[in-house]
């Protein structure tokens, strides 16, 4: 199959509303997503970008599908590393489902290219970010290692 794909599923004791806010609002993303903030109108077709703490764009793209508290699909390209920028756009999907007292979050990240360097790079980042997101929503505190942008990146 000529594509690279990763899946991450985590169950979080929270509500779809809180999870949605945590994934999109700067006051939350700063805490568990390496100090980053995102900028978008959050409507279909709107541009999207995620910025490092110093304001530089780390990744950019477009909102492909959006259904607040349920589903978000982003066109996503890395802007920091030329070899990854050259791979073009990937597709990232959040799916949020309420399951009793928990919420199931599924993150899918696909690149229509086998052996993608970008997908390999994000595949080590996502588990840390998502574990920290879970910790933040369940305990009020994110994981210390995810509160700052990694040195040298």
């Amino acid at each position, binding site marked *: *199959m000529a594509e690279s*794909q*990763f*899946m*991450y*599923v*985590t*169950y979080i*004791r929270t509500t779809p509303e809180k999870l949605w806010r945590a994934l999109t609002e700067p006051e939350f993303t700063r805490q568990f997503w390496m100090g980053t903030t995102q900028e978008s109108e959050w409507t279909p077709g709107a541009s999207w970008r995620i910025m490092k703490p110093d304001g530089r764009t780390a990744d950019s793209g477009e909102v492909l599908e959006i259904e607040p508290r349920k589903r978000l699909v982003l066109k996503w390209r890395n802007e920091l590393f030329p070899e990854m920028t050259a791979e073009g756009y990937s597709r990232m999907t959040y799916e949020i489902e309420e399951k009793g007292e928990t919420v199931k979050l*599924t993150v899918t990240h696909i690149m229509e290219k086998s052996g993608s360097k970008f997908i390999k790079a994000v*595949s080590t980042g996502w*588990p*840390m970010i*998502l*574990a920290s997101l*879970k*910790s933040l929503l369940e305990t009020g505190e994110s*994981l*210390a*290692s995810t509160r700052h942008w990694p040195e040298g990146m």
Partner: protein
Amino acid sequence: MAGDFDKTFKALVAPEPRLLLDRLHAENGQSLGQLCEGMEMTRQAVTRHLKLLEEATLVVPIWRGREKLHYLNPMPIHEIAERWIGKYERGRLRVLAELKTKLEGETNG
């Protein structure tokens, strides 16, 4: 949650499911047929192990048309690591693990 850790450890007790995870780690998104290839296990046994792995969300199925593809989900194992291996220990442990791999590689190779 404690119940989730129980499921994760239970699914990983036998060597066969761990082998299936290795196969998915090498190539993600395989069908049951692909996973059965070259395995010294019946299709039924592979199905049974996959079911346990799915219940523990270590493996996530995705339907593509009529084909069910299996993807490795790193989250449960990451959560185990996060709970028992301190965030500050990780860097040092990674260096040690890399050293071990390198030294063992040299001995074996």
